[in-house]
């Protein structure tokens, strides 16, 4: 599903990632872990096309993302769901509108959008809350809305950058359980985190980075 061949990423003289070669299989649940500045977010950014490797090759579902032109990004991102630490919800749009955005951008008919949104809100435990606005929700609820948006178009891969970073213990576990259930349906899940307790409670393969190098796979 995901293959990196000797990927290096430099910002000027600073190497954020150094000579990374790793493979993540389809349907796998994998942590990207390490201290702050280890290169976790940089790796995720390269996976969703926000950054290009300075050297090396990055394949996602057989597509060489490292050479993908800007016009190819929309197609890449429609096949993946992305979750951020700060949720990245549109405060002026309702929960349903936020979740439905991922379907709206691909021209899905309104009736289908409404049906799918209700279904995924049920999966994340927010059934009937579609008319509310993000600022009225708790942190955990907002992150669940972000998860719902990330999975509403059945992506083959889900990227989560510190999804529990702004959540307390109980909410963090709720979100991880949802990600786990998504993975059980066949979606490849990559979670960038430095929460050791969470990784212990939900044990999966871990890719550990330190100073931009992959030290454990």
């Amino acid at each position, binding site marked *: 599903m995901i293959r990196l061949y000797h990927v290096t990423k430099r910002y000027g003289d600073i190497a954020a990632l150094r000579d990374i070669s790793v493979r993540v299989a389809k349907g796998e649940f994998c942590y990207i872990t390490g201290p702050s500045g280890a290169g976790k977010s940089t790796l995720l950014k390269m996976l*969703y*096309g*926000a950054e290009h490797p300075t050297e090396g090759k990055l394949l996602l579902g057989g597509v060489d993302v490292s050479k993908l032109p*800007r*016009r190819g*990004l*929309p*197609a*890449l*991102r*429609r096949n993946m769901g*992305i979750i951020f630490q700060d949720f*990245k*919800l*549109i405060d*002026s*749009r309702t929960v349903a509108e936020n979740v439905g*955005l*991922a379907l*709206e*951008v*691909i*021209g899905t008919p309104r009736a289908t959008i409404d049906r799918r949104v209700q279904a995924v809100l049920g999966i994340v435990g927010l059934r009937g809350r579609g008319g509310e606005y993000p600022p009225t929700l708790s942190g955990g609820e907002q992150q669940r809305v972000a998860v719902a*948006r990330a999975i509403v178009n059945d992506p083959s891969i889900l990227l989560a950058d510190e999804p529990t970073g702004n959540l307390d213990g109980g909410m963090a576990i709720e979100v991880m359980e949802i990600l786990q259930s998504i993975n059980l349906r066949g979606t490849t899940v990559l979670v960038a985190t430095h929460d050791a307790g969470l990784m212990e409670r939900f044990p999966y393969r871990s890719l550990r980075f330190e100073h931009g190098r992959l030290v454990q796979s």
Partner: protein
Amino acid sequence: MHSLQHILRRAARSLWEHLYLNAMAALVIAAALLLLGVYLTVQFNLNAIVDTWDRDIHVSAYFHEDVSQDRRFVLRDQVAARPEVAQVRYVSPADAREWLLARVDDIGPVLDELGPDALPASLEISLVPTQATPDAIAAFAASLAGPDFDDIDYGREWIERFNAFLSLLQLLGAVLGALIGIAALFLVANTVYLIVYNRKDELEIQKLVGATPTFITAPFLLEGAAQGLLGSILALVGLWGVHRLLVVRLQDALQLGLAGELAFLPWSYLVGLFLLGVGLGVAASFLSVRRFLASAP
């Protein structure tokens, strides 16, 4: 394929949510078009005046003193038959003397001293409007040159200077118009960019979930068209108001003696201004969104 309904709905929502900024953009377009419209009104009327003067430009061909009366009439008829000639009038020495006496004070004794045939007979020739250009007039005058005429006069120097002045005015106007247009485009683009910037979080999220540039841009183009539409309407109404003010105030104050009052712009100009306003709004929106899309992926 994104439905028009989706795009219209998003554009309408954005127009409403950012009413103040959209109104500002419309006002900038209105101001630019109003400036341009005032300039065009002045130039349109100036051209109309010049057309009148052009029609009045004529050639004076002064007969040699040895040319007989019959020969003069023959030449008159020959000139009158030429297609570029609108009118020919024979001016005898006596007619010329009367004309001069009526316009120049105290010239009578001088003319008496010189004798009754002091002033030469001449042909006063008016050309058709299409021939009232410096080159055409010069060519016509050159064609008349010969032993029958002592001098062919058509105010050459004045015509050339006046046309040079008009050309300069038109060039200045074109440059001014272009500068106003460019300034307006950047002003509106920066105003629209504020709207785009205000929504940058939303637009970044759209990009992250796979929105194409078309999906992101289309509603902004519609918003730009709406800004242009409103701006154009405001400008045309303002232009009408300014025109009425100028007609009432200027004509009395300056005693211009114009043939008729200051004309308002014809429909073709007004439609052009209207379309320019809409185009300005769309172009400004396009530039602003493109600037945003070229930033962080």
